[in-house]
């Protein structure tokens, strides 16, 4: 290989694996719904580092809006995070009032290797996968929380808004994120490359698209103003 090709190769690899990305709406998939209840769980510790947790129950629909069937594992998506913003477009720019992400840890338990073995088939095994055909939807219930410190400025990284701040806003929007492909299924050291998932994705491409990415919801309206 000529050495002058190396920078081009590096640029190509960077484009392929760059983690820099904004969570745009996934092509062919839409997660939408509504907030059905909001509960404020107070930390009674009485510390200046105390937080309130705004716990929200949601009714959601994951809709295949594209022309291709989408393959998921036959397990409920794991809701791992939520953010609040003043306007829907604020989510795209990262202008959140507050966000919380609490995801699963690395776990090498046999449950995952067993699931890996049972997925390793020429076509998606029906007992382990579900296929969402075009226009079909999957109804989901989820509970998510955002942590609202009494004194956000005390935290690193600074955590934006307190419950008092939110109650003063006339409108508020919520966005949630869920994982449908657990990284604990990935056996290699650098799991973020999703080598195992991509292998199955290629193998099953004639049936549909195996969904590996996190799914961000459409912005949902939220009301935390106290009733007069």
């Amino acid at each position: 290989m000529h050495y002058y090709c190396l920078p081009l190769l590096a640029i190509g690899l960077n484009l392929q694996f760059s983690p820099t990305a904004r969570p745009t709406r996934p092509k062919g998939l839409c997660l939408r719904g509504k907030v059905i209840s909001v509960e404020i769980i107070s930390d009674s510790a009485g510390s200046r580092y105390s937080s309130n947790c705004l716990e929200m129950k949601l009714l959601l629909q994951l809709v295949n809006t594209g022309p291709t069937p989408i393959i998921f594992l036959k397990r409920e998506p794991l809701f791992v995070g939520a953010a609040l913003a003043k306007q829907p477009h604020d989510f795209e720019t990262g202008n959140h009032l507050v966000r919380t992400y609490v995801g699963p840890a690395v776990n090498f338990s046999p449950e995952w290797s067993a699931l890996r073995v049972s997925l390793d088939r020429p076509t998606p095994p029906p007992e382990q996968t579900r296929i969402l055909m075009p226009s079909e939807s999957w109804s989901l219930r989820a509970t998510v929380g955002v942590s609202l410190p009494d004194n956000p400025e005390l935290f690193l990284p600074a955590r934006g808004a307190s419950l008092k701040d939110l109650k003063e806003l006339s409108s508020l929007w919520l966005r949630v994120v869920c994982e449908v492909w657990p990284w604990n299924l990935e056996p290699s050291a650098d799991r973020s490359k999703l080598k195992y998932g991509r292998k199955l994705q290629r193998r099953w491409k004639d049936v549909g698209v195996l969904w590996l990415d996190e799914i961000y919801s459409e912005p949902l309206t939220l009301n935390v103003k106290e009733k007069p």
Partner: protein
Amino acid sequence: MRSGLEILFHNTGRGFLTASGMTVRDATMGIFNRGRCDVGRVFSAVESGFTEQNKWETRNPGRFGGPTHSDCSGVATRIAFPRETFGRLQVGVRGADDLISSEGATKSVAENALRIGDIVRWADNNNTPKHFANFIFRDDSGKPLVFSKSGERGPYEAATTSDSRWSAYGYGKIRGINSAQTGYYRPRN
């Protein structure tokens, strides 16, 4: 009144130390005048985590989470057991339990006896480990604050041990590996 550790925490990750030409280790040696470097080592990890988190958020403005190369078990055990975890890419929650339970590796301590770098362990109702963190300081009301990374795709952050987010997202409660233990562990290194 703020403790020395709390003051250090507020200067960590904000460029104060870098701007002053000091390292975290210099600063902690100055504040605590200790021969041991536990405080410096722990706060170096805290500062490094927050710096990485800031960079990640700048690169990924609309995304939730944090850098993906480690999780809570990796961060907590690298701080508590630097020799045993040297060169290990991933530890995992079972691996963290194994390190804590190794003969003579830790002792179970009471919540009110926590020292900087001690491990806090969360587990679900079946006592399956879900989360690990390191104690960093206690505020003047006595509330312990911990440093952790919430998941493999999660952020580096500090929070109180009683923060309701842990239970809201299924981390469960602070529990010992066996019922006689508190869930708070001091490494014997």
